[in-house]
């Protein structure tokens, strides 16, 4: 138990420092390279200046993360995307109401984020570690098949449909690479994703350098994974 808490605090402090600093840098992007997400920036802006708004927004996602880590061991992406940046902002804004001097300041956000991260991650992992075995067995029995269906069927279909909706070029590339990746990798999603990127690039600006670079990466990826999974040997067995 002590080991789990210590490890969690190290991870939380390390990640919290970086995630909160990255979030503060979002207010200075694109001149300064930031990290986080556009959605997160919008949410930070929406509660700007009000420590209570930041706090309750983060709290909602903390409950969500707690449910997910108890059920499946996953802390959700919201720990770095939402809880840490919003709670760091909330703590800083309690003392100083000006976002320009708090939320937009990477150093202050980083220090607050490290403290918040250490506490949040240690808290979530400790409650996950005291959950009885039979409870997690139930969760695994439900989540296992649910997420296999997600991964095997829903996500590939959605990505291929998204490619088709985006136009002729992304549709063609998404279908072709998605189908090939189902054959080679056993899942159509990665191919559909790469097909969307390549197809959209070609649709917007022709078969340019970045489309070519991406195509080369795809060929290498498919060749290597096909080799690893015995696809090429298997395919040859149909001919010979």
């Amino acid at each position, binding site marked *: 138990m002590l080991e789990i808490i210590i490890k969690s605090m190290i991870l939380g402090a*390390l990640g919290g420092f970086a995630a909160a600093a990255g979030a503060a840098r979002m207010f200075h992007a694109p001149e300064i390279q930031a990290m986080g997400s556009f959605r997160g920036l919008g949410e930070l802006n929406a509660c700007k200046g009000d420590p209570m708004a930041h706090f309750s927004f983060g709290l909602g996602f903390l409950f969500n993360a707690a449910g997910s880590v108890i059920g499946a061991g996953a802390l959700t992406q919201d720990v770095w995307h939402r809880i840490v940046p919003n709670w760091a902002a909330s703590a800083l804004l309690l003392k100083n109401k000006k976002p320009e001097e708090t939320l937009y300041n990477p150093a202050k956000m980083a220090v607050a984020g490290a403290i918040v991260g250490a506490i949040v991650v240690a808290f979530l992992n400790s409650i996950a570690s005291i959950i009885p075995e039979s409870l997690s067995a139930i969760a695994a029995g439900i989540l296992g098949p649910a997420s296999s269906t997600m991964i095997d069927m829903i996500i590939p279909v959605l990505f291929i449909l998204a490619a088709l909706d985006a136009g002729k070029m992304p549709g063609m590339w998404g279908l072709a690479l998605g189908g090939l990746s189902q054959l080679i990798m056993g899942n159509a999603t990665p191919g559909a994703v790469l097909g969307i990127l390549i197809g959209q690039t070609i649709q917007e600006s022709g078969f340019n350098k970045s489309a070519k670079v991406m195509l080369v990466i795809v060929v290498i990826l498919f060749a290597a994974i096909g080799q690893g999974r015995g696809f090429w040997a298997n395919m040859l067995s149909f001919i010979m």
Partner: protein
Amino acid sequence: MKKLNDLLMKNESFPLLTAMLCAAILGGSHMFITEGFGFFNEIAQAEMIRNGMETGDFATPIGYCTGFLLARILEGPLVGILDIGGSLMTGVGTGFASLFLVTGMGAIMENFVLTLIAGFVIGLILGLVIIIVKKTMPQGMAAGGTGIMMGAGNAAGRYLGPLIIIYAAKYSIPAGIGSIIGAVICQKLGKSMVGGAILGAMIVAFIFPGAAA
């Protein structure tokens, strides 16, 4: 504080931030592999790793995560905000962790300090690549493709809640009833129903164990 802020307001310090976050995220994958919790990502990605550890086939997480990582690394310097969900949490925390497990370097993932070092190095390299791309950005990169992907990714998340109710109902009658109650309460409160559905199923199925299917 002033000095730290000057450092953190520079583009050159970006690789340091990605390195720290990647170390933490890969450390979370180490916790998940050794303890079964602590994974810095969504349930779907956690199940990809768990599934891979059971079957030995990691092609899905590696393929899925490489696609996301590539897309986000291309997009990050273009728009000025690197999406840490797709690039670091999915790409590194799930993709690289799977890569280590499948290429016989699983020992790295089982050691806390080694995962931190590995994550730090991977993050440092990714951060450097992003800053180099940002400074030498070729013209004519399409940002539109990432928007389409994002839309599909977000749409996928919506399916998990209903799927959990369906599989809870298949698991046992109490689990099904619990997940319905949990999901309805969350819907009423305007929260994501995934957490409510799974917690409801767990609680009711725990009270009435019976003979699970």
